[in-house]
């Protein structure tokens, strides 16, 4: 299988889908002439022209709402937010319009819309530009929320997201765009709402998604050299959450930690923590451990930033703690 970067995988998914279906267009800041703030849309303007690859003014609420409107009448917009931090100025359009339209209209309308872009901290971008916001979107019925962790998953999931008839929040990561991984050649999709076991193990379950999958895999490797086999479970889609495979895994390992780079309070991580705690109640040998971002606005300083986020050490400590080691 060829190796592609996360960026290329996403670019391919968009290009292939746009090729297939002319109701798809992409709109966002710097997506066209500039070739994407993070070069994710590189070459799309040249391929599909300015009717379908559209530079927008800095008006997230305006062009996200425009996307919702266009989706209500049959187009399939892809709205790129330069980062999800900026989706906050558009969140009313997402929560009150995109997510509720079908319900409010009694099923008359659908909103086949993808809102995508990088989420979470990158490199020293400080408080307003370093937010992992998936918990907010995952709270909202009517949305689907996808947070892929590998180039292969990103491509397959994004293609499904674009074909999905519902509004999908698709969260990438600036620091993952360069990450390489094997991506199957030719057409494939990965269904939304299906959890993937990324590594099998019998001693502890590590649940992680997005960027954190890679950290979890590294931690698992490290644990393995200590004789502990971790099962790494990746929901990929955080809403709807396919928790069955997580519960199954914990029934086998009896121990679990959840890793996420979002803030801890009322989060996807604590949701998963709660679900495991209650649904695998009789199987847990230790409380579910969480490894999340610290509960602080992100500081600019590099060292503080590193320490405000999950690290391998923190994962190993949490693992050891639920394994009652040291």
């Amino acid at each position, binding site marked *: 299988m060829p190796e592609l970067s996360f960026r290329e995988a996403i670019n391919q998914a968009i290009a292939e889908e746009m090729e297939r279906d002319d109701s798809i267009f992409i709109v966002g800041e710097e997506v066209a002439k500039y070739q994407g703030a993070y070069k994710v849309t590189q070459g799309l303007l040249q391929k599909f022209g300015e009717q379908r690859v559209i530079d927008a003014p800095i008006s997230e*609420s305006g*062009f996200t709402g425009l996307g919702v409107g266009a989706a209500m009448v049959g187009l399939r917009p892809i709205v790129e937010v330069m980062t999800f931090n900026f989706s906050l100025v558009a969140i009313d359009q997402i929560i009150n319009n995109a997510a509720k339209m*079908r319900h409010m209209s009694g099923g008359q309308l659908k909103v086949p819309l993808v809102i995508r872009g990088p989420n979470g901290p990158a490199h020293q971008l400080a408080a307003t530009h370093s937010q992992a916001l998936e918990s907010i979107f995952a709270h909202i019925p009517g949305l689907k929320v996808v947070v892929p962790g590998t180039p292969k998953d990103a491509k397959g999931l994004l293609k499904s997201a674009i074909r999905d008839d519902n509004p999908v929040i698709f969260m990438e990561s600036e620091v993952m765009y360069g990450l390489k991984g094997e991506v199957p050649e030719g057409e494939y999709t990965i269904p939304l709402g299906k959890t993937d076991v990324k590594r099998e193990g019998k001693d502890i379950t590590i649940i992680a998604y997005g960027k954190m999958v890679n950290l979890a895999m590294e931690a698992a490797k490290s644990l393995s050299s200590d004789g502990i086999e971790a099962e790494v479970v990746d929901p990929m889609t955080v809403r709807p959450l396919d928790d069955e495979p997580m519960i199954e895994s914990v029934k086998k390992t009896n121990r679990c930690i959840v890793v996420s780079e979002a803030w801890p309070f009322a989060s996807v991580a604590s949701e998963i923590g709660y679900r495991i705690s209650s649904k695998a109640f009789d199987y847990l040998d230790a409380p579910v451990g969480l490894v999340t971002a610290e509960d602080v606005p992100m500081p600019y300083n590099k060292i503080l930033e590193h320490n405000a986020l999950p690290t391998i050490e923190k994962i190993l400590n949490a693992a050891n703690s639920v394994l009652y080691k040291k």
Partner: protein
Amino acid sequence: MSDYAVQTNTEEYLSLGRNKLVEMYHTMVLIRRFEESAAKAYSQQKIGGFLHLYIGQEAVAVGSIAAIHKEDYIITAYRDHGHAIARGTDPRILMAELFGKYTGSSKGKGGSMHFFDAERKMLGGHAIVGAQVPLGTGIAFKAKYRKEDAVCLTYLGDAAMNQGAFHEALNLAGLWKLPVVYIVENNMYGMGTAVERASAVTELSKRGSAYGIEGMVADGMNVFAVYDAVKEAAKKARELSLPTLLEVRTYRYRGHSMSDPDSIYRTKQEIEEEKRRDPLEQMKKFLLDEKIATQKEIDRVDEEVKQTVAECVEFAENSPEPPLESMYDDIYVQ
């Protein structure tokens, strides 16, 4: 503006033909009676939530929708009864929606603020002030993207112009030359706040200049004035793909919603004064003066409407409540 302003383009309006003219009157009367009936049902607690009546503003929905084609789109805010009825939605399913019934246009999930009729390209019914403006802009974007010969009428209130969503959407429409007609129904108040206490500029159509969008003003109590203005704006949208910001000066006779103690912010006298421009009365006078309809025919319209509204209520009353499980339907397309 004089009361019952004389029609200037009488010839042209006559060319609309008797049927259409009487139908326009019929629709205005239907909107009013439908709402009076809804208000009654509300007081009987058969209707809940917010109920924002359109009474007084009927000429806007009727005049504007009469001026467009059935391929065109419309979208509005929560004060949406008039627009759905004018667009031809079966009023029975609208009344059923108000009653929260399963036969309602949104199966009882939407209520008064969320009338939708996808088939007739009536795209809601939206309850967050100003938030429908980007949607209407996106609908117009689709019309242009697909090279449809269609425009989107996007209605909003005077107070909605102060929302950021309005600004961002109009800039997009001006920049990308989208075939949209923004119709500001200036009924002089956003809830209890008079226009001049909310908008730094009170000549609302002028606010389009910040986006290179031409402004127009029309008398919103006169169905033909609205018709003319929308016709012209829609033509510009259709032929030149240019947006327009049309302010129509109108008035709501009732409170903002059913619980609004409107005496706090306006006088009885003001309301009575405005009622002298009543759009239904103006139209009726036109029909009679121009001998398009006789008093008897007018009476028949009133009678027909009465019966239709009675049927609406009956249909709504007799319709079933939605099954409990239906709350889980229509959230996701499976």
